[in-house]
């Protein structure tokens, strides 16, 4: 990258940073744009792919503002992110679904509407990527992401697992998947909104009782949506979002990504430097994107996923756990929109062979530099962590803790290094 304040002992020559386009196999004329950052630690570190949510927001949002190798300074130079996830992994960012970020098409039929389309595209991409980088094909592989990626990630993990079993192409050494403040099981998570809002003092008991009257209608609508509904899924989107908008009508200017904060009018965060940086000619030339637009968040992609929104993506996870693929679900404690309570509930409700042992396991503290950074429950391949002092974007709010969490989780040390605390807190 130009404008790059190197410092910290790296020569600019070979930072092991790559960017590229992949001509999407099963598409009319789509191309996916991606970044690949080799690990600052070791080439043998795991490959970690990060998927941004939205749906329809670009991966560059997380890359520059959460866990990427560098951040953008106000004078449009790049500075190292001391806690970038490329300190413990070879890090992949993909602008997806098609139409997001620098990924583009000339044919609107390439717009995806469900997780089959999204996960097939990502699987095809991985096959091409590992063909281009065979030296990394044997590395451990982890899928990570946030928010609406709570839908993408389980679908993508299941697609990779299916492809491995069917020997469809290059074997991908899938070891685990992690979901940060995600939306995975809407029925459980939408029901948790009022409980979380009441617990955190956003609404009062009378308001809780009134809004909760919508919950049964929402649950019914989601059941009708099921795994292949269309109109019913749209209807459940409208019904269930009435729960959330009713809460927000009472919450005023509270930032529902981090209830400790306020939004000024509609402005909650300022990520405009990213667009400014990526519009610079020198940067575009370095990336090889020419005059291809950059769509930071795509309203069209967002709306195209409407039918997908209320689908339950938890259903495919138990099979992966039974086959020993690890799952880490984590959530910043001050996020409302994908709050830790709703995520904890669907994780505890999952039907798998280790369910009872997981539910009965004790909460332990997750410490970083001797300070409690979160509360963790683990059994076998499944871990759930509530991260302290963080909202929707945990790597942005707690960079050190999130890097340490990634390190310990990928090294299989997450549950062993946490401090045992015999305070088995009953699940609320």
């Amino acid at each position, binding site marked *: 990258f130009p404008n790059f304040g190197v410092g910290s002992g790296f020569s600019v020559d070979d930072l092991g940073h790559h960017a590229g386009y*992949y001509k999407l196999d099963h598409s009319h004329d789509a191309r996916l744009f991606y970044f690949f950052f080799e690990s600052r630690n070791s080439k043998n570190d795991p490959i970690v792919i990060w998927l941004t949510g939205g749906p329809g927001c670009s991966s560059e949002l997380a890359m520059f503002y959460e866990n990427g190798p560098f951040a953008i300074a106000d004078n449009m130079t790049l500075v190292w992110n001391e806690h970038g996830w490329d300190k413990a992994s070879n890090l992949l960012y993909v602008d997806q679904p098609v139409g997001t970020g620098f990924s583009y098409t000339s044919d609107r039929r390439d717009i995806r509407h469900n997780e089959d389309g999204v996960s097939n595209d990502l699987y095809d991409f991985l096959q*091409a990527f590992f063909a281009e980088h065979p030296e990394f094909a044997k590395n451990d592989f982890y899928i990570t992401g946030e928010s609406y990626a709570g839908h993408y990630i389980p679908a993508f993990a299941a697609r990779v697992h299916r492809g491995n079993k069917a020997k469809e192409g290059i074997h991908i050494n899938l070891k685990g998947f992690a979901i940060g403040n995600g939306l995975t099981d809407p029925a459980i998570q939408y029901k948790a909104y009022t409980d979380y809002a009441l617990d955190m003092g956003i609404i009062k008991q009378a308001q809780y009782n009134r809004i909760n009257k919508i919950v049964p209608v929402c649950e019914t609508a989601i059941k009708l949506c099921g795994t292949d509904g269309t109109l019913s899924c749209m209807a459940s*989107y409208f019904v269930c979002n009435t729960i959330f908008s009713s809460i927000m009508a009472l919450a005023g200017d509270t930032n529902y990504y981090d209830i400790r904060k306020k939004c000024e009018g*509609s402005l909650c965060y300022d990520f*405009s430097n990213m*667009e400014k940086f990526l519009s610079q000619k020198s940067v575009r030339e370095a990336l090889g994107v020419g005059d291809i637009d950059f769509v930071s968040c795509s309203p069209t992609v967002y709306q195209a996923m409407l039918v997908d929104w209320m689908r339950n993506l938890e259903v495919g996870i138990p099979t992966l756990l039974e086959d020993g693929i690890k799952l880490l679900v984590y959530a910043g404690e001050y996020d409302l929109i994908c709050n830790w309570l709703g995520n904890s509930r669907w994780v505890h409700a999952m039907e798998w062979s280790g369910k009872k042992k997981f539910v009965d396991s004790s909460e332990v503290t997750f410490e970083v530099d001797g300070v409690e950074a979160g509360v963790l429950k683990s059994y076998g391949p499944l871990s759930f962590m509530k991260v302290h002092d963080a909202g929707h974007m945990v790597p942005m709010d707690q960079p050190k803790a999130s890097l340490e969490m990634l390190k310990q989780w990928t090294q299989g040390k997450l549950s062993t290094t946490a401090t045992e605390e015999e305070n088995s807190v009953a699940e609320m």
Partner: protein
Amino acid sequence: FSSALLLDPRFAGSHFPSVHAEKLIRQLNLSPKEDLNVVKGGDGSSGLAGGKRIAERKLR
């Protein structure tokens, strides 16, 4: 049930995903010029040659 719901005016307006998408963009102080990254006609500007499906470059 579903079609009746979709035609119910109470669920119009602010519940539409287009409104939510635009709100998300304003919340992050973003201003994408386009709603979707769609180019006119298939162009090979992404540098793919010889049937290769990936064109990658090192960032220096």
